């Protein structure tokens, strides 16, 4: 830990003692879960470095950006149209909220029977342990779940928060509402930054974000190979890091990784035996450093080949049309793209069922694991329909409900072992 970092954290108002405990815990966990894996692509070195200095170098970059008079905008959800943020010369950063560490802090205020993601994110702010939150000028929330919606009201007492309204249905009326929300968000960002968003700027931003999505698609497609050339854990980490790393650098690094992984596929090299059971994970998001389910699956002999999740395909499958046009036309294209995210906050949301079945086939999976954060009611209830859809296709499903803590790892291992015995 460099003195540079400590000074920066002090200036950001970080609770140093608590923050030290968090970072000291992360090292051994990362060693155990990531560095102990065999035959990792060399290209993962960059991502190891980024995690090794998780609250250092990237925060310095964001701080520098802020000191130069620019803005940093923190988000929690893939519904926030980041093109608009980039177009105003602000930097969006996807906050993590994936650790048990900040949950007890949040429980001093929030109800216990709230999902771990909500508690973790709130705890980071309340406990002053996340330099990304501290660096940001605005937190953008959204209405994808009732728990978050209400948490944002309380979070707003600590830091400026703006909430985008995501509709709950996919009707024409809902689409109009969403478009007007996207337009309003542009106004919010323009006022925050003092920069007007031009058609040219917006088009550049769209191309940048699309390019990152394309590289993530590229990596995802490489996981279709058998044997699989990269572990699910590593692929998960890449997408997790892409939420807060510099977009241009991220694109370069992911592409370099893909080149290497591609040559592995050509050579028929894999990180798991060709007959290792292939798993699609579907459901709630996995924010960094939530690697729990991937780790359990991959240490039980399975390999995760795809995530139908906000950390996976829902984040990068669809691109915004690059046809350009006026600012209004481009905002329309942006709104259209984001309405295609098949989140369980919508009713009905049968497109997600189609996605799961399609991905299960495309990635030739042996089974689907439905991952549900405890108290995430939308995904828990939608799992009933997921189960029916998969049963119709003869695709085995294991439903898991869990949180960030380790107390249920034994039970989860029993389920996972039995599931793998069943599908092998």
């Amino acid at each position, binding site marked *: 830990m460099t003195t540079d970092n400590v000074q920066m954290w002090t200036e950001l108002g970080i609770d140093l003692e608590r923050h030290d405990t968090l970072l000291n815990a992360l090292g051994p966990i990362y060693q155990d879960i990531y560095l102990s894996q065999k035959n990792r692509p060399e290209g993962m070195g960059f991502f190891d470095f980024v995690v090794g200095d998780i609250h250092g170098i990237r925060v310095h970059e964001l701080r520098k950006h802020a000191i130069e008079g620019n803005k940093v905008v923190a988000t929690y959800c893939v519904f926030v149209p980041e093109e608009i943020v980039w177009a105003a010369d602000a930097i969006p950063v996807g906050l993590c909220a994936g650790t048990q560490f900040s949950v007890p802090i949040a429980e001093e205020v929030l109800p216990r029977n709230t999902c771990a993601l909500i508690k973790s994110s709130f705890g980071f702010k309340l406990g002053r342990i996340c330099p990304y939150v501290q660096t940001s000028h605005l937190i953008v929330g959204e209405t994808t779940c009732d728990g978050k919606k209400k948490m944002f009201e309380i979070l707003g007492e600590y830091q400026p928060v703006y909430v985008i309204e995501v509709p709950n249905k996919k009707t024409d009326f809902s689409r109009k509402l969403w478009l007007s929300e996207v337009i309003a968000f542009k106004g919010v960002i323009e006022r925050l930054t003092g920069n007007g968003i031009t058609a040219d700027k917006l088009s550049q931003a769209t191309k940048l974000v699309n390019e990152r999505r394309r590289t993530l698609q590229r990596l995802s497609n490489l996981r279709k190979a058998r044997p699989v050339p990269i572990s699910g854990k590593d692929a998960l980490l890449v997408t997790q890091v892409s939420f807060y790393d510099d977009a241009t650098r991220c694109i370069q690094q992911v592409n370099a990784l893909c080149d290497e992984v591609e040559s592995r596929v050509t050579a028929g090299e894999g990180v798991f035996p060709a007959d290792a059971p292939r798993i699609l994970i579907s459901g709630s998001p996995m924010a960094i450093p939530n690697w729990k389910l991937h780790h359990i699956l991959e240490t039980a002999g399975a390999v995760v080949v795809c995530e139908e999740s906000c950390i996976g395909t829902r984040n990068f499958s669809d691109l915004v049309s690059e046809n350009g046009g006026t600012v209004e036309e481009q905002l329309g294209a942006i709104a259209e793209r984001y309405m295609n995210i098949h989140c369980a906050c919508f009713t009905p949301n049968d497109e997600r069922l189609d996605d799961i079945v399609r991905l299960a086939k495309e990635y030739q999976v042996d089974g689907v694991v439905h991952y549900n954060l405890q108290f995430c009611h939308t995904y828990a209830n939608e799992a009933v329909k997921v189960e029916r859809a998969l049963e119709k296709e003869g695709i085995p499903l294991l439903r898991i*409900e*869990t949180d960030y803590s380790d107390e249920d790892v034994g039970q989860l291992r*029993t389920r996972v*072992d*039995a*599931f793998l015995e*069943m599908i*092998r």
Partner: protein
Amino acid sequence: MFDGSILDLAILETGVNPLRRCQQLLTDRSYEGLVVTGYGRHLVAPTIGGRVVSEIGAYAVGARYLYPDCRTVIDVGGQDSKVILLSDEGEVQKFEMNDRCAAGTGKFLEVMANTLEVGIEELGDLALSASKVVQINSLCTVFAESEVVSLIARGEESSAIALGLHQAIATRVAGMVRRIRPKERVVFAGGAALNRCLHQLISEKLGIEVTVPHKPQIVGAIGAALVARGGEVGGGQVIRETVNTLMST
């Protein structure tokens, strides 16, 4: 186990050091094959050797061996409860397990027996002696315990409370069974199957006569022993593979 007869059997509490417990058990015992199952299987197997089988797999094999027409297994053990659906061939088709809490497990009954000041083995008979029943609304062990304490404070008979507890747990287990759309024969195994009241209530709620084997708490151990022995067990493919590997090494 040899040729289907049990040569030796020991039931011990896990204790605080399951690895040492297992080592003690194996001292002075000779065996041809070893299979480890249950919680702690991944802790024990790397040290003492043996193949690892999940208890879901082990219960499936064990129940199927005892009752070749078994299609559904209910296992209410100490730490969790499970329901397993088997195919005609005896392969695991589907299973359900309780989520993240002790509701519907042996642990729940144990805590409640303590609160009612009876032994765990007497709890079922106490419930069967009840002349009335009180409704227990909570299935969370912690909440249910405080609910029981307030029922005691209200002067309710402990037998009526015990019956209410059994009703609650049986409803929960039966719900889990119905979720997998059970087929007969249904075998009820695990330590809690020794509880006559629970057996009776689960049968009633399902409308199916549920079979409890002799010594239901060792069905998983029998299954594991069968996997170790190899042979004609109609388990899933992995069980057969395990058997094949064991036979060839």
